[in-house]
């Protein structure tokens, strides 16, 4: 089944922000906004739910911390205790200050890398993936708002969009799996 969407292009992020607020105030459904760079506050203006990425990052950090503790305990205390600088490694807690940099680094490493990988998986991104953005100019200097036309009057919607400062408006018949 084909559905109608409207692509409205903007050339300024402030104009785009105001447009998003106006379109939402008129109870139209914004499918997606494509931007060349992150626009602060856009997620809030679009009414997207708060990201849970930060929570996953915290959990990954905790995992990294635990990995560092167990790893250093095995390497330095259990497997091969050495006497470094007059500090024999027979007790984890007494040698703990020496392991703090490792704990810190692995916490950051786990939190950062796993968060990025989660982000890629969540956004369905992988190497050699075909780009989903409908207009190449959104990778350069244009912002594109995709509005679901649904059962609304297309002319009315188009005139609303041009009032909000869109520089170009296209009506697209979208096939369901025509990404």
């Amino acid at each position, binding site marked *: 089944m084909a559905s109608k969407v409207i692509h409205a292009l903007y050339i300024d992020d402030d104009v785009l922000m105001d447009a998003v607020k106006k379109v939402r105030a008129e109870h139209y459904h914004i499918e997606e906004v494509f931007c060349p760079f992150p626009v602060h*506050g856009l997620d809030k203006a679009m009414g997207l739910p708060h990201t849970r990425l930060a929570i996953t990052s*915290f959990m990954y950090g905790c995992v990294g911390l635990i990995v560092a503790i167990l790893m250093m305990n095995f390497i330095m205390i259990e497997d091969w205790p050495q006497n470094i*600088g007059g*500090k024999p490694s027979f007790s984890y807690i007494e040698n703990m*200050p*020496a392991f*703090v*940099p490792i704990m810190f680094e692995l916490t950051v490493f786990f939190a950062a890398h796993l968060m990025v990988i989660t982000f890629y998986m969540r956004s369905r991104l992988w190497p050699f993936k075909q780009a989903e953005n409908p207009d190449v100019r959104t990778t350069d200097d244009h912002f594109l708002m995709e509005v679901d036309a649904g059962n609304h009057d297309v002319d009315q919607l188009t005139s609303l969009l041009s009032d909000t400062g869109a520089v170009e408006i296209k009506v697209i018949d979208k096939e369901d799996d025509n990404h």
Partner: protein
Amino acid sequence: MYTLSNRLRLFSIILMVVGLVGLIIGFADRPGSIEEVKEMMAAHDAHGGGHGEAQAAGHGAEDAHGGDAHYEHVLHQLQNKPWASLYVAAFFFFMIALGVLAFYAIQFASQAGWSPVLFRVMEAITAYLVPGGLILFVILALSGFHVNHLFVWANPDVLDVTSKDYDALITGKASWLNGTGFIIRAAIFMGGWLLYRHFAVKYSRKQDEDSEGNKWYKKSFKISAGFLVFFIYTESMMSWDWIMSFDPHWFSTLFGWYVFASLFVSGITTIALMTIYLKSKGYMEFVNDSHIHDLAKFMFGISIFWTYLWFSQFMLIWYSNIPEEVTYFITRIEDYKLPFFGMVVMNFVFPLLVLMNSDFKRVNWFVVMAGIVILCGHYIDIYNMVMPATVGKSWFIGISEISAVLLFLGLFLFVVFRALTKAPLLAKGNPYLEESKHFHY
């Protein structure tokens, strides 16, 4: 315009009076002779020794000593105690104002767009530099010229080869560590900071009257950049003079940064607390959640920066284990276990967990709670820097510590909120004001 309510004025005056009376009692209560020390210690024993491990450790050493030498030692420590607590409190509130001054200068030098709505609060807090600085200067002069016994190096006997107190290491440092040089340097540091404060505030007020061409704003920018260069050198030297020289044999090359982190985070926390207080009273309606959020981010970030420096200093000294360096931490871990590790919990673990969540940084009571813990934690931080070298094992948070804090807290509130009434709460001439008002995250 802000008007100082009678209740707040009365509250701060009561704090000052109570603090002053308590401090006088603290000074009057000092033991005058070895006999009095013996009586006091006997009385403590009768109490059942409920004063923690510091007391117990003191008694253990007493048995080993046997003679009067130990009692004389304790006598000197207890005679130092009110002076040291006065010093800690005077420095703590001065460093809050100094931290705010540095933060204020950074806002101008970096041409920050988010913060101009907070400028009048910052200017008011830095007003404390004048009276607080004068009091601290007098205390420094008294200590530097050995009227009290806070600084070991100020005692002329340590330079005298024939004396039993002769100290070759301090003699070697005497060209820097002497009363005259100490007080001249203090005058230069404070003079420079106060001079910047005077002109920065003056230009900020002039910019309100005449914002044409941003003439005064540009002047503010220039002196702020210059001040920051002056500040980072003088702040570092100030930390050697006023704090590190309590342990004149010991030195740490990152000590200046460490003290800077402490004063910076205390200053930013105070800005946040004052802004939230003023908002709760219906002032500063132009300050929104995002400004509080940004201040809380600074509190979080600089707390972690402080921990980084604290740990860097600790770990290198702990690992290399050189006697002349490691003695600093051995004293603190053996005699000051609770404040030493308690401070790390208050200044690192607590802000880390409480302020990590983005949403919590917008909840005012969360920020206030974290801020109060951070301020208490940094008081204990300064306490740990000063007390081990001045009162040693004879420490406890008693009447003189609490009174000194109350006295300076009262003075701080009185001066700061009175300074707040002197100008409109919005720096309306600032060229970045509109950006700041619409700041959102």
